[in-house]
């Protein structure tokens, strides 16, 4: 490992007990690092466990196995400890309207974190700086406004200001632009990228949108049914994906014309019933087309879980481009 990671997840498992006693393996053995100052995109479809993983990183879910480490120390789950932790790790949700208290002014919303964390200093100056840094200028104009008085894009800026005012080291953003208009989307992404450059914050952005990853992420991790199935530097991973799931995901993005569309059948299986062998095999184009049989791996695809992320061939060892597929390596 080159430099120590800011956030480390080691073999993290999170389970939920559903109705009728079924156990959902929402996160099923995830290893993931976020380095200081990087933007990592965690990509997957709904039900893949990406939001649960984000909540686990924030300490809102506690892994039943494995561990989350921040700055080298494992997360503790006492209230005081978590409060101090949230000074360093902040969250931005998908829907800014739901994230803001409709009866609080923008000033109150942004200052809330400072009060909870009892941060010393002139509150008003800090709020003004946070708003202004989030592109709400002049900040004083926004102090007395309520969330409904500003646009959706501005609301998301308020949420980001509220998170950034604590000068965290890591921002976890769950689909930060998917509820915003197309033209506003780019502005918010620019803001996030600017914050990384100016403050050196790391961002873990949880999204289904590969275009977003191309826009702002240094690295991408692709998640399927509770597991990271491929991970690597954005340019490598998106220009030469190795896992058949990543390939399929990329092929259905309308902005990628050169790829033949590979529309997977069905939907992501229920996490209470993870398929045997490789969890992707029932939908895998390699298995369905007979390619896996030709490669002599079909039996393994059906019975053996490719738990280990292996370096994809043709990449330098240190590049970190890895995939969990029997066809790789």
């Amino acid at each position: 490992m080159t430099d120590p990671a800011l956030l480390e997840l080691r073999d993290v498992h999170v389970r939920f007990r559903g109705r009728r006693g079924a156990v959902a393996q929402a996160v099923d053995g995830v290893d993931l690092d976020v380095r200081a100052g990087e933007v990592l995109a965690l990509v997957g479809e709904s039900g893949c466990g990406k939001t649960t993983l984000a909540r686990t990183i924030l300490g809102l879910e506690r892994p039943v196995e494995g561990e989350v480490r921040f700055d080298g120390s494992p997360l503790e789950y006492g209230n005081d400890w978590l409060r101090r932790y949230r000074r360093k790790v902040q969250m931005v949700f998908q829907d800014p309207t739901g994230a803001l208290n409709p009866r609080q002014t923008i000033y109150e919303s942004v200052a809330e974190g400072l009060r909870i964390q009892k941060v010393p200093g002139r509150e008003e100056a800090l709020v003004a700086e946070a708003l202004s840094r989030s592109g709400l200028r002049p900040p004083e104009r926004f102090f007395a406004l309520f969330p409904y008085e500003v646009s959706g894009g501005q609301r998301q800026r308020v949420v980001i200001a509220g998170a950034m005012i604590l000068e965290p080291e890591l921002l976890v953003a769950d689909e930060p632009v998917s509820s915003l208009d197309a033209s506003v989307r780019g502005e918010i992404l620019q803001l996030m990228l600017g914050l990384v450059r100016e403050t050196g914050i790391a961002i873990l952005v949880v999204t289904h949108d590969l275009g977003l990853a191309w826009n702002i992420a240094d690295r991408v991790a692709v998640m399927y049914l509770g597991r990271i199935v491929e991970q690597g530097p954005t340019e490598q991973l998106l220009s030469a994906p190795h896992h058949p799931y990543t390939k399929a995901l990329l092929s259905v993005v309308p902005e990628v014309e050169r790829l033949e569309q590979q529309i997977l059948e069905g939907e992501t299986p229920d996490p209470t019933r993870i398929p045997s062998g490789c969890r992707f095999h029932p939908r895998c184009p390699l298995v369905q087309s007979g390619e896996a049989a030709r490669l002599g791996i079909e039996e393994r695809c059906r019975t053996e879980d490719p738990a280990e992320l292996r370096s994809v061939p043709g990449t330098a060892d240190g590049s970190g481009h890895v995939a969990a597929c029997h066809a790789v390596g």
Partner: protein
Amino acid sequence: MSTPLLLDVRDLHVTYPSGGGVPAVRGVSFQLERGETLGVAGESGCGKSTLAGALLRLLPPGTEVSGEVLLDGENVLTMREDRLRAVRWTELAVVFQGALHTLNPVKRVGWQIEEAITTHERGIPRSELRGRVAELLETVGIPGRRAVDYPHQLSGGQRQRVLIALALACSPHLLIADEPTTALDVMVQAQVLRLLEDLQRDLGLAVVFITHDLSTLAAVCRRLLVMYAGRVVEDGPSDEVFGSPKHPYTAALAAAFPIIGDARFRMAPSGLPGDPPDPRHLPSGCTFHPRCSVARPECASRAVELWPAGEGRRAACVQVLDEVPT
């Protein structure tokens, strides 16, 4: 005209009654031939869903509507109620986003499709009705035996397919799809888009496809309209509109969805400053000028219209006037 137009919308205006009148659609005209696909792109508040509502005459009471919506030459806006009921579903049908809210949660999906059929055709024998429901479900890729399921027993993608089956129940000629894939996952989105493409081709359906996602439209539709603040600001063949936009707003929308692999978009998200305007307080002149990066002084006052901008293309931006040889 050799082939009669399926849909001819002429100078459509829609104003909502609230707060002294909100002009949501302000003079939209377009035409659609049989079997054609047309994409309508725009952001929230641009009037695209109001446009869909007006085509179906499904707007709240008190809404002011003027202009004409000619469906096979017949004006939907002035039709008698009974004629309108006959036309809905049999001539034109709609697929909205959010299938969970559109389907009745306490009725089996098969029953809901049967109801759509029997409302328009009486006296169909029970067995034939069952057969038609099963056939419709199979058409949209759902096994016929799922007819006995309630909506909550189906996945999001399957519910959206049921809505499409419902829309097809009375073999309409025109399908209006308002954000039909927005709430769906990317893979399911691709499945539903492919289904719509197949149906369009196999059944000769005309489709008006409404969404904020320009790249999806470019992939699915032959022709595109881009709306901003209640008006069409650009139209033309979709690959040209998406590939070489004439209106700066279209260019910004196209750039908002990056081309993966294209170095121009790498670590360079592209957006527009500001927000879509409030229809109650529209900017003067060209409504887009406050957000436009190439606005000229005249844009704040000069009225714009859809000027010709090349073969089969029009754009409402003074820039296109520079290109026209005089």
